[in-house]
Protein backbone atom coordinates (compact mmCIF):
# COMPACT_ATOMS: atom_id res chain seq x y z
CA UNK A 1 0.00 0.00 0.00
CA UNK A 2 2.83 2.29 0.92
CA UNK A 3 4.60 1.51 -2.37
CA UNK A 4 1.42 2.13 -4.36
CA UNK A 5 1.01 5.54 -2.67
CA UNK A 6 4.64 6.32 -3.37
CA UNK A 7 4.22 5.43 -7.06
CA UNK A 8 1.08 7.56 -7.25
CA UNK A 9 2.85 10.55 -5.74
CA UNK A 10 5.73 10.17 -8.22
CA UNK A 11 3.24 10.02 -11.13
CA UNK A 12 1.41 13.10 -9.86
CA UNK A 13 4.66 15.00 -9.48
CA UNK A 14 5.67 14.11 -13.04
CA UNK A 15 2.30 15.21 -14.44
CA UNK A 16 2.47 18.46 -12.47
CA UNK A 17 5.99 19.17 -13.71
CA UNK A 18 4.94 18.46 -17.31
CA UNK A 19 1.96 20.79 -17.01
CA UNK A 20 4.10 23.53 -15.45
CA UNK A 21 6.79 23.14 -18.10
CA UNK A 22 4.30 23.32 -20.96
CA UNK A 23 2.59 26.31 -19.35
CA UNK A 24 5.90 28.17 -19.07
CA UNK A 25 6.61 27.40 -22.74
CA UNK A 26 3.25 28.85 -23.72
CA UNK A 27 3.92 31.99 -21.67
CA UNK A 28 7.38 32.46 -23.20
CA UNK A 29 5.84 34.02 -26.29
CA UNK A 30 5.51 36.88 -26.82
CA UNK A 31 8.46 38.02 -24.73
CA UNK A 32 8.04 40.94 -22.35
CA UNK A 33 10.49 43.07 -24.33
CA UNK A 34 9.21 44.24 -27.73
CA UNK A 35 12.73 44.98 -28.96
CA UNK A 36 13.50 41.25 -29.11
CA UNK A 37 10.74 40.81 -31.68
CA UNK A 38 11.66 43.96 -33.62
CA UNK A 39 15.23 42.70 -33.94
CA UNK A 40 13.87 39.32 -35.06
CA UNK A 41 11.66 40.95 -37.68
CA UNK A 42 14.59 43.04 -38.90
CA UNK A 43 16.66 39.86 -39.26
CA UNK A 44 14.15 38.22 -41.60
CA UNK A 45 13.14 41.35 -43.44
CA UNK A 46 13.64 40.90 -47.15
CA UNK A 47 14.97 44.07 -48.71
CA UNK A 48 13.03 45.19 -51.79
CA UNK A 49 14.70 45.50 -55.18
CA UNK A 50 15.42 49.08 -56.26
CA UNK A 51 12.33 49.09 -58.47
CA UNK A 52 10.03 47.89 -55.72
CA UNK A 53 11.66 50.22 -53.21
CA UNK A 54 10.93 53.17 -55.51
CA UNK A 55 7.34 51.95 -55.93
CA UNK A 56 6.88 51.73 -52.15
CA UNK A 57 8.16 55.32 -51.86
CA UNK A 58 5.82 56.50 -54.62
CA UNK A 59 2.90 54.71 -52.99
CA UNK A 60 3.70 56.43 -49.68
CA UNK A 61 3.77 59.82 -51.40
CA UNK A 62 0.45 59.11 -53.10
CA UNK A 63 1.95 59.08 -56.60
CA UNK A 64 0.81 55.56 -57.46
CA UNK A 65 -1.67 52.93 -56.33
CA UNK A 66 -0.61 49.58 -54.95
CA UNK A 67 0.28 47.00 -57.58
CA UNK A 68 1.18 43.31 -57.95
CA UNK A 69 4.89 43.82 -57.34
CA UNK A 70 4.22 45.65 -54.07
CA UNK A 71 1.71 42.98 -53.02
CA UNK A 72 4.25 40.26 -53.78
CA UNK A 73 6.90 42.07 -51.71
CA UNK A 74 4.42 42.38 -48.84
CA UNK A 75 3.66 38.66 -49.00
CA UNK A 76 7.38 37.85 -48.95
CA UNK A 77 7.62 39.87 -45.75
CA UNK A 78 4.35 38.73 -44.21
CA UNK A 79 6.06 36.89 -41.33
CA UNK A 80 8.17 39.96 -40.48
CA UNK A 81 5.06 42.16 -40.52
CA UNK A 82 3.23 39.77 -38.19
CA UNK A 83 6.16 39.74 -35.77
CA UNK A 84 6.21 43.56 -35.75
CA UNK A 85 2.47 43.67 -35.08
CA UNK A 86 2.96 41.36 -32.09
CA UNK A 87 5.89 43.49 -30.89
CA UNK A 88 3.86 46.70 -31.09
CA UNK A 89 1.34 45.30 -28.61
CA UNK A 90 3.98 44.66 -25.93
CA UNK A 91 4.06 47.50 -23.38
CA UNK A 92 7.82 47.51 -22.76
CA UNK A 93 10.56 48.02 -25.31
CA UNK A 94 14.22 48.06 -24.29
CA UNK A 95 16.59 48.32 -27.26
CA UNK A 96 19.63 47.53 -25.13
CA UNK A 97 21.27 50.88 -25.87
CA UNK A 98 24.45 51.49 -23.90
CA UNK A 99 24.17 55.21 -23.25
CA UNK A 100 27.62 55.29 -21.66
CA UNK A 101 28.96 55.22 -25.23
CA UNK A 102 27.67 58.77 -25.61
CA UNK A 103 27.50 60.20 -29.12
CA UNK A 104 29.38 57.13 -30.35
CA UNK A 105 26.43 54.86 -29.59
CA UNK A 106 25.26 53.08 -32.76
CA UNK A 107 21.58 53.09 -33.67
CA UNK A 108 21.13 50.77 -36.65
CA UNK A 109 17.62 49.92 -35.48
CA UNK A 110 16.22 53.39 -36.22
CA UNK A 111 16.54 53.12 -39.95
CA UNK A 112 15.33 49.53 -40.00
CA UNK A 113 12.28 50.39 -37.93
CA UNK A 114 11.45 53.10 -40.44
CA UNK A 115 11.79 50.56 -43.26
CA UNK A 116 9.37 48.26 -41.44
CA UNK A 117 6.99 51.19 -40.97
CA UNK A 118 7.12 51.88 -44.73
CA UNK A 119 6.19 48.25 -45.26
CA UNK A 120 3.26 48.54 -42.85
CA UNK A 121 2.23 51.72 -44.62
CA UNK A 122 2.24 49.91 -47.98
CA UNK A 123 0.28 47.06 -46.43
CA UNK A 124 -2.29 49.52 -45.04
CA UNK A 125 -2.69 51.29 -48.38
CA UNK A 126 -3.08 47.97 -50.20
CA UNK A 127 -5.76 46.88 -47.71
CA UNK A 128 -7.59 50.21 -47.98
CA UNK A 129 -7.55 49.99 -51.78
CA UNK A 130 -9.33 46.66 -51.49
CA UNK A 131 -11.91 48.16 -49.11
CA UNK A 132 -10.59 46.62 -45.90
CA UNK A 133 -10.38 49.91 -44.02
CA UNK A 134 -10.55 48.64 -40.47
CA UNK A 135 -7.50 46.37 -40.89
CA UNK A 136 -5.76 49.20 -42.76
CA UNK A 137 -6.41 51.50 -39.78
CA UNK A 138 -5.08 48.89 -37.38
CA UNK A 139 -1.79 48.94 -39.35
CA UNK A 140 -1.66 52.71 -38.78
CA UNK A 141 -2.18 52.16 -35.07
CA UNK A 142 0.69 49.67 -35.15
CA UNK A 143 2.88 52.42 -36.63
CA UNK A 144 1.85 54.73 -33.78
CA UNK A 145 2.72 52.04 -31.23
CA UNK A 146 6.08 51.46 -32.91
CA UNK A 147 6.70 55.20 -32.68
CA UNK A 148 6.26 54.97 -28.92
CA UNK A 149 8.70 52.07 -28.77
CA UNK A 150 11.33 53.98 -30.76
CA UNK A 151 11.17 56.26 -27.74
CA UNK A 152 12.43 59.57 -26.53
CA UNK A 153 15.65 58.40 -24.89
CA UNK A 154 17.68 60.34 -27.47
CA UNK A 155 16.93 63.37 -29.59
CA UNK A 156 17.37 61.48 -32.86
CA UNK A 157 15.16 58.61 -31.72
CA UNK A 158 12.53 61.14 -30.67
CA UNK A 159 12.62 62.67 -34.16
CA UNK A 160 12.32 59.26 -35.81
CA UNK A 161 9.42 58.52 -33.48
CA UNK A 162 7.71 61.77 -34.54
CA UNK A 163 8.23 60.88 -38.21
CA UNK A 164 6.45 57.54 -37.67
CA UNK A 165 3.55 59.35 -35.97
CA UNK A 166 3.30 61.66 -38.99
CA UNK A 167 3.30 58.75 -41.40
CA UNK A 168 0.54 56.99 -39.46
CA UNK A 169 -1.52 60.19 -39.28
CA UNK A 170 -1.20 60.83 -43.00
CA UNK A 171 -2.66 57.39 -43.68
CA UNK A 172 -5.45 57.76 -41.12
CA UNK A 173 -6.34 61.10 -42.73
CA UNK A 174 -6.45 59.43 -46.18
CA UNK A 175 -8.51 56.48 -44.99
CA UNK A 176 -11.00 58.65 -43.10
CA UNK A 177 -11.43 60.63 -46.31
CA UNK A 178 -12.18 57.59 -48.42
CA UNK A 179 -13.97 55.06 -46.18
CA UNK A 180 -17.67 54.84 -45.36
CA UNK A 181 -18.61 56.43 -42.00
CA UNK A 182 -19.18 53.29 -40.00
CA UNK A 183 -19.99 54.26 -36.42
CA UNK A 184 -18.55 51.11 -34.90
CA UNK A 185 -15.24 51.44 -36.75
CA UNK A 186 -14.97 55.14 -35.89
CA UNK A 187 -15.75 54.57 -32.20
CA UNK A 188 -13.17 51.76 -32.08
CA UNK A 189 -10.61 54.01 -33.81
CA UNK A 190 -11.28 56.84 -31.33
CA UNK A 191 -10.75 54.54 -28.33
CA UNK A 192 -7.51 53.18 -29.83
CA UNK A 193 -6.16 56.66 -30.60
CA UNK A 194 -6.94 57.83 -27.05
CA UNK A 195 -5.10 54.80 -25.64
CA UNK A 196 -1.91 55.40 -27.66
CA UNK A 197 -1.87 59.09 -26.75
CA UNK A 198 -1.08 58.30 -23.11
CA UNK A 199 2.58 58.62 -22.15
CA UNK A 200 3.63 59.63 -25.65
CA UNK A 201 7.37 60.32 -26.21
CA UNK A 202 8.38 63.75 -24.94
CA UNK A 203 10.77 66.26 -26.43
CA UNK A 204 11.77 67.35 -22.92
CA UNK A 205 12.93 63.86 -22.01
CA UNK A 206 14.91 63.68 -25.25
CA UNK A 207 16.63 67.04 -24.70
CA UNK A 208 17.40 66.17 -21.07
CA UNK A 209 19.03 62.89 -22.19
CA UNK A 210 20.98 64.72 -24.89
CA UNK A 211 22.26 67.04 -22.17
CA UNK A 212 23.46 64.09 -20.07
CA UNK A 213 25.34 62.69 -23.06
CA UNK A 214 26.88 66.02 -24.05
CA UNK A 215 28.07 66.58 -20.46
CA UNK A 216 29.74 63.18 -20.60
CA UNK A 217 31.40 63.94 -23.93
CA UNK A 218 32.70 67.44 -23.14
CA UNK A 219 35.96 66.12 -21.78
CA UNK A 220 39.51 66.47 -22.94
CA UNK A 221 39.87 62.76 -23.65
CA UNK A 222 36.70 62.58 -25.73
CA UNK A 223 36.39 65.86 -27.58
CA UNK A 224 38.52 64.87 -30.59
CA UNK A 225 36.34 61.90 -31.42
CA UNK A 226 33.19 63.99 -30.95
CA UNK A 227 34.36 66.78 -33.27
CA UNK A 228 35.67 64.25 -35.80
CA UNK A 229 32.29 62.51 -35.79
CA UNK A 230 30.64 65.86 -36.48
CA UNK A 231 32.91 66.27 -39.52
CA UNK A 232 32.89 69.39 -41.65
CA UNK A 233 29.41 70.27 -40.38
CA UNK A 234 30.87 71.09 -36.98
CA UNK A 235 32.12 74.45 -38.28
CA UNK A 236 29.31 76.88 -37.73
CA UNK A 237 28.93 80.49 -38.73
CA UNK A 238 30.57 82.73 -36.22
CA UNK A 239 32.91 80.07 -34.84
CA UNK A 240 36.42 80.95 -35.93
CA UNK A 241 38.99 78.27 -36.73
CA UNK A 242 40.97 79.58 -33.75
CA UNK A 243 38.03 79.09 -31.37
CA UNK A 244 37.45 75.66 -32.86
CA UNK A 245 41.04 74.62 -32.22
CA UNK A 246 40.81 75.99 -28.66
CA UNK A 247 37.87 73.64 -28.22
CA UNK A 248 40.10 70.74 -29.17
CA UNK A 249 43.11 71.80 -27.12
CA UNK A 250 41.42 73.17 -24.00
CA UNK A 251 42.67 72.33 -20.53
CA UNK A 252 40.60 70.73 -17.77
CA UNK A 253 39.30 74.11 -16.56
CA UNK A 254 38.15 74.96 -20.07
CA UNK A 255 36.10 71.74 -20.22
CA UNK A 256 34.65 72.29 -16.73
CA UNK A 257 33.58 75.84 -17.70
CA UNK A 258 32.20 74.53 -21.01
CA UNK A 259 30.10 71.90 -19.23
CA UNK A 260 28.73 74.48 -16.79
CA UNK A 261 27.82 76.82 -19.64
CA UNK A 262 26.17 73.99 -21.61
CA UNK A 263 24.19 72.82 -18.58
CA UNK A 264 22.86 76.34 -17.92
CA UNK A 265 21.78 76.88 -21.53
CA UNK A 266 20.16 73.44 -21.86
CA UNK A 267 18.30 73.83 -18.56
CA UNK A 268 16.96 77.17 -19.81
CA UNK A 269 15.94 75.47 -23.07
CA UNK A 270 14.11 72.71 -21.20
CA UNK A 271 12.16 75.34 -19.23
CA UNK A 272 11.36 77.14 -22.51
CA UNK A 273 9.97 73.90 -23.99
CA UNK A 274 7.14 74.08 -21.46
CA UNK A 275 5.94 77.44 -22.79
CA UNK A 276 3.25 77.70 -25.48
CA UNK A 277 4.73 77.32 -28.97
CA UNK A 278 5.09 80.96 -29.99
CA UNK A 279 6.76 82.02 -26.72
CA UNK A 280 8.78 78.84 -26.58
CA UNK A 281 10.14 79.33 -30.09
CA UNK A 282 11.02 82.96 -29.39
CA UNK A 283 12.81 82.06 -26.16
CA UNK A 284 14.73 79.20 -27.82
CA UNK A 285 15.82 81.51 -30.64
CA UNK A 286 17.01 84.06 -28.06
CA UNK A 287 19.03 81.36 -26.30
CA UNK A 288 20.57 80.27 -29.59
CA UNK A 289 21.52 83.87 -30.49
CA UNK A 290 23.04 84.32 -27.05
CA UNK A 291 25.21 81.23 -27.43
CA UNK A 292 26.41 82.29 -30.89
CA UNK A 293 27.25 85.77 -29.57
CA UNK A 294 28.97 84.45 -26.45
CA UNK A 295 31.04 82.01 -28.50
CA UNK A 296 32.84 84.97 -30.10
CA UNK A 297 34.02 86.33 -26.74
CA UNK A 298 33.72 83.54 -24.20
CA UNK A 299 35.71 80.33 -24.90
CA UNK A 300 33.44 78.38 -22.53
CA UNK A 301 30.54 78.94 -24.97
CA UNK A 302 32.32 77.49 -28.01
CA UNK A 303 31.51 73.81 -27.40
CA UNK A 304 27.90 74.68 -26.60
CA UNK A 305 27.67 76.55 -29.90
CA UNK A 306 29.06 73.53 -31.70
CA UNK A 307 27.09 70.79 -29.98
CA UNK A 308 23.70 72.35 -29.30
CA UNK A 309 21.08 71.33 -31.88
CA UNK A 310 18.62 73.89 -33.21
CA UNK A 311 16.13 73.25 -30.43
CA UNK A 312 13.67 75.83 -31.77
CA UNK A 313 13.39 73.86 -35.01
CA UNK A 314 12.96 70.61 -33.12
CA UNK A 315 10.25 72.32 -31.08
CA UNK A 316 8.51 73.23 -34.34
CA UNK A 317 8.77 69.63 -35.61
CA UNK A 318 7.29 68.39 -32.33
CA UNK A 319 4.44 70.94 -32.43
CA UNK A 320 3.70 70.08 -36.04
CA UNK A 321 3.52 66.33 -35.31
CA UNK A 322 1.33 66.76 -32.24
CA UNK A 323 -0.95 69.28 -33.96
CA UNK A 324 -1.45 66.89 -36.88
CA UNK A 325 -2.38 64.13 -34.42
CA UNK A 326 -4.81 66.51 -32.70
CA UNK A 327 -6.38 67.34 -36.06
CA UNK A 328 -6.84 63.62 -36.76
CA UNK A 329 -8.44 63.11 -33.32
CA UNK A 330 -10.75 66.08 -33.85
CA UNK A 331 -11.66 64.79 -37.31
CA UNK A 332 -12.59 61.37 -35.91
CA UNK A 333 -15.08 63.10 -33.58
CA UNK A 334 -16.52 65.05 -36.49
CA UNK A 335 -16.88 61.87 -38.56
CA UNK A 336 -18.62 60.21 -35.58
CA UNK A 337 -21.16 63.08 -35.54
CA UNK A 338 -21.66 62.59 -39.27
CA UNK A 339 -22.13 58.82 -38.77
CA UNK A 340 -24.70 59.45 -36.01
CA UNK A 341 -26.67 62.30 -37.57
CA UNK A 342 -25.98 61.96 -41.26
CA UNK A 343 -24.66 65.55 -41.35
CA UNK A 344 -21.43 67.32 -40.68
CA UNK A 345 -21.74 69.78 -37.77
CA UNK A 346 -22.08 73.45 -38.74
CA UNK A 347 -19.59 74.56 -36.13
CA UNK A 348 -16.68 72.85 -34.43
CA UNK A 349 -17.93 70.86 -31.43
CA UNK A 350 -16.54 72.05 -28.08
CA UNK A 351 -13.77 70.24 -26.24
CA UNK A 352 -11.90 68.84 -29.24
CA UNK A 353 -8.08 68.62 -29.31
CA UNK A 354 -6.47 71.92 -30.24
CA UNK A 355 -4.06 73.51 -32.68
CA UNK A 356 -0.82 73.62 -30.68
CA UNK A 357 0.73 76.38 -32.80
CA UNK A 358 -1.81 78.83 -31.34
CA UNK A 359 -3.12 76.92 -28.32
CA UNK A 360 -6.62 77.57 -29.67
CA UNK A 361 -9.33 75.45 -31.29
CA UNK A 362 -8.81 74.66 -34.95
CA UNK A 363 -10.64 76.90 -37.39
CA UNK A 364 -13.37 74.69 -38.86
CA UNK A 365 -14.54 75.13 -42.41
CA UNK A 366 -17.33 73.00 -43.81
CA UNK A 367 -17.00 72.34 -47.52
CA UNK A 368 -19.09 70.66 -50.21
CA UNK A 369 -17.03 67.49 -50.15
CA UNK A 370 -15.83 67.49 -46.54
CA UNK A 371 -14.22 69.85 -44.06
CA UNK A 372 -10.96 71.59 -43.25
CA UNK A 373 -9.29 72.02 -39.86
CA UNK A 374 -7.00 75.02 -40.06
CA UNK A 375 -4.37 76.12 -37.55
CA UNK A 376 -4.65 79.62 -36.15
CA UNK A 377 -0.95 79.96 -35.40
CA UNK A 378 2.03 79.90 -37.76
CA UNK A 379 4.97 77.55 -38.05
CA UNK A 380 7.55 80.22 -37.17
CA UNK A 381 10.37 78.48 -39.05
CA UNK A 382 8.52 78.32 -42.36
CA UNK A 383 6.14 81.23 -41.80
CA UNK A 384 3.30 78.92 -42.79
CA UNK A 385 -0.17 78.10 -41.48
CA UNK A 386 -1.09 74.43 -41.78
CA UNK A 387 -4.49 73.06 -42.67
CA UNK A 388 -5.79 69.51 -42.74
CA UNK A 389 -8.36 68.56 -45.31
CA UNK A 390 -10.78 65.71 -44.72
CA UNK A 391 -13.21 64.50 -47.35
CA UNK A 392 -16.56 62.86 -46.87
CA UNK A 393 -17.16 60.19 -49.49
CA UNK A 394 -20.71 60.01 -50.84
Amino acid at each position, binding site marked *: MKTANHRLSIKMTCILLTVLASASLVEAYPPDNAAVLYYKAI*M*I*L*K*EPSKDVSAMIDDLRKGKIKSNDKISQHLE*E*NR*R*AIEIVETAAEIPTCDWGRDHSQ*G*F*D*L*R*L*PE*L*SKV*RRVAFLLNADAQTLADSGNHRTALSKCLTMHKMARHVSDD*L*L*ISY*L*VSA*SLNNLANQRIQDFLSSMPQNLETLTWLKSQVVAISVNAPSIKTAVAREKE*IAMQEMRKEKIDS*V*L*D*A*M*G*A*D*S*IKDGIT*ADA*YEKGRRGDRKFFKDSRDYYAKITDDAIVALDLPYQQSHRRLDELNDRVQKDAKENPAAVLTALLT*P*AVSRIRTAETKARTFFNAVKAAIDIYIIKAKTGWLPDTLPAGLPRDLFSGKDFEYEKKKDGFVLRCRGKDLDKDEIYQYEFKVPK
Partner: protein
Amino acid sequence: MKPTENIEEFVRLEKPHVTTGETIDKRTLNDSFAAMDETVRANKTSAVGIILRSRAAKLAAAAVIILAIGLLAIQFGPSEQEPSETRNVAKSPADMLSVMSLNMAYRRGGIEAVDDLSNEAFEMLGSQPANVSIRELLAESNGV
Protein backbone atom coordinates in the same frame (compact mmCIF):
# COMPACT_ATOMS: atom_id res chain seq x y z
CA MET B 1 43.79 89.45 -90.07
CA LYS B 2 47.11 87.73 -90.51
CA PRO B 3 47.21 83.91 -90.20
CA THR B 4 49.26 84.11 -86.99
CA GLU B 5 46.80 86.58 -85.50
CA ASN B 6 43.96 84.33 -86.63
CA ILE B 7 45.44 81.44 -84.72
CA GLU B 8 46.10 83.55 -81.63
CA GLU B 9 42.53 84.88 -81.72
CA PHE B 10 41.19 81.34 -82.13
CA VAL B 11 43.16 80.09 -79.16
CA ARG B 12 42.18 83.06 -77.02
CA LEU B 13 38.45 83.03 -77.78
CA GLU B 14 37.57 79.47 -78.70
CA LYS B 15 39.84 77.68 -76.24
CA PRO B 16 40.07 74.62 -78.54
CA HIS B 17 39.65 71.28 -76.87
CA VAL B 18 41.66 68.57 -78.61
CA THR B 19 40.97 65.00 -77.68
CA THR B 20 43.84 62.78 -78.71
CA GLY B 21 43.61 59.13 -79.41
CA GLU B 22 45.88 56.38 -80.62
CA THR B 23 45.09 57.06 -84.30
CA ILE B 24 45.62 60.81 -84.05
CA ASP B 25 48.83 60.38 -82.07
CA LYS B 26 50.19 57.95 -84.66
CA ARG B 27 49.22 60.24 -87.51
CA THR B 28 50.86 63.24 -85.79
CA LEU B 29 54.03 61.24 -85.18
CA ASN B 30 54.14 60.02 -88.80
CA ASP B 31 53.60 63.58 -90.08
CA SER B 32 56.47 64.75 -87.83
CA PHE B 33 58.72 61.99 -89.13
CA ALA B 34 57.79 62.83 -92.74
CA ALA B 35 58.58 66.51 -92.11
CA MET B 36 61.90 65.58 -90.56
CA ASP B 37 62.72 63.28 -93.49
CA GLU B 38 62.00 66.12 -95.87
CA THR B 39 64.31 68.43 -93.95
CA VAL B 40 66.95 65.74 -93.88
CA ARG B 41 66.63 65.14 -97.62
CA ALA B 42 67.12 68.86 -98.18
CA ASN B 43 70.33 68.85 -96.08
CA LYS B 44 71.82 65.50 -96.91
CA THR B 45 75.25 66.41 -95.70
CA SER B 46 74.32 67.59 -92.19
CA ALA B 47 75.25 65.38 -89.20
CA VAL B 48 71.84 65.97 -87.64
CA GLY B 49 70.28 64.63 -90.79
CA ILE B 50 72.38 61.50 -90.66
CA ILE B 51 71.46 60.90 -87.01
CA LEU B 52 67.74 61.58 -87.57
CA ARG B 53 67.56 59.07 -90.36
CA SER B 54 67.69 56.34 -87.71
CA ARG B 55 64.18 55.36 -86.42
CA ALA B 56 65.55 54.80 -82.89
CA ALA B 57 66.89 58.32 -82.80
CA LYS B 58 63.53 59.65 -83.97
CA LEU B 59 61.77 57.82 -81.16
CA ALA B 60 64.30 59.10 -78.62
CA ALA B 61 63.70 62.66 -79.82
CA ALA B 62 59.95 62.19 -79.52
CA ALA B 63 60.41 60.78 -76.00
CA VAL B 64 62.45 63.85 -74.99
CA ILE B 65 59.73 66.16 -76.30
CA ILE B 66 56.99 64.24 -74.42
CA LEU B 67 59.10 64.27 -71.24
CA ALA B 68 59.64 68.01 -71.55
CA ILE B 69 55.89 68.59 -72.00
CA GLY B 70 55.20 66.41 -68.96
CA LEU B 71 57.68 68.34 -66.82
CA LEU B 72 56.17 71.63 -67.92
CA ALA B 73 52.69 70.36 -67.11
CA ILE B 74 53.81 69.40 -63.61
CA GLN B 75 55.54 72.73 -63.14
CA PHE B 76 52.60 74.88 -64.23
CA GLY B 77 49.73 72.51 -63.45
CA PRO B 78 47.34 72.86 -60.52
CA SER B 79 48.97 72.46 -57.15
CA GLU B 80 47.87 69.74 -54.76
CA GLN B 81 44.82 70.60 -52.67
CA GLU B 82 45.49 72.30 -49.40
CA PRO B 83 44.56 70.10 -46.47
CA SER B 84 41.11 70.94 -45.11
CA GLU B 85 40.90 72.83 -41.84
CA THR B 86 38.71 70.15 -40.33
CA ARG B 87 39.85 66.58 -40.10
CA ASN B 88 37.78 64.54 -42.51
CA VAL B 89 37.85 61.07 -41.09
CA ALA B 90 36.66 58.25 -43.34
CA LYS B 91 33.68 56.69 -41.63
CA SER B 92 32.89 53.02 -41.40
CA PRO B 93 29.23 51.99 -41.86
CA ALA B 94 28.98 51.49 -38.09
CA ASP B 95 30.32 55.01 -37.47
CA MET B 96 27.75 56.35 -39.92
CA LEU B 97 25.02 54.95 -37.68
CA SER B 98 26.28 56.61 -34.50
CA VAL B 99 24.16 59.10 -32.57
CA MET B 100 26.39 61.98 -33.64
CA SER B 101 26.40 61.05 -37.35
CA LEU B 102 22.62 60.68 -37.37
CA ASN B 103 22.22 63.95 -35.45
CA MET B 104 24.39 65.75 -37.99
CA ALA B 105 22.48 64.18 -40.89
CA TYR B 106 19.23 65.44 -39.35
CA ARG B 107 20.70 68.92 -38.99
CA ARG B 108 21.70 68.87 -42.68
CA GLY B 109 18.52 67.58 -44.24
CA GLY B 110 15.94 66.33 -41.77
CA ILE B 111 14.63 62.79 -41.54
CA GLU B 112 15.25 62.12 -45.26
CA ALA B 113 18.96 62.78 -44.76
CA VAL B 114 18.94 60.32 -41.83
CA ASP B 115 17.31 57.73 -44.15
CA ASP B 116 19.86 58.38 -46.90
CA LEU B 117 22.82 58.08 -44.54
CA SER B 118 21.45 54.88 -43.01
CA ASN B 119 20.74 53.36 -46.43
CA GLU B 120 24.28 54.18 -47.50
CA ALA B 121 25.65 52.54 -44.36
CA PHE B 122 23.57 49.39 -44.85
CA GLU B 123 24.60 49.19 -48.51
CA MET B 124 28.24 49.35 -47.40
CA LEU B 125 27.57 46.66 -44.82
CA GLY B 126 26.60 44.37 -47.66
CA SER B 127 24.00 41.68 -48.02
CA GLN B 128 21.05 41.53 -45.72
CA PRO B 129 20.06 38.42 -43.77
CA ALA B 130 17.72 36.33 -45.84
CA ASN B 131 14.50 34.80 -44.70
CA VAL B 132 15.50 31.26 -43.85
CA SER B 133 13.02 28.72 -42.56
CA ILE B 134 13.87 26.14 -39.93
CA ARG B 135 13.21 23.45 -42.54
CA GLU B 136 15.85 24.96 -44.83
CA LEU B 137 18.34 25.20 -41.98
CA LEU B 138 17.74 21.55 -41.03
CA ALA B 139 18.10 20.52 -44.66
CA GLU B 140 21.45 22.34 -44.81
CA SER B 141 22.66 20.81 -41.53
CA ASN B 142 21.65 17.28 -42.43
CA GLY B 143 22.69 17.53 -46.02
CA VAL B 144 19.27 16.21 -46.97
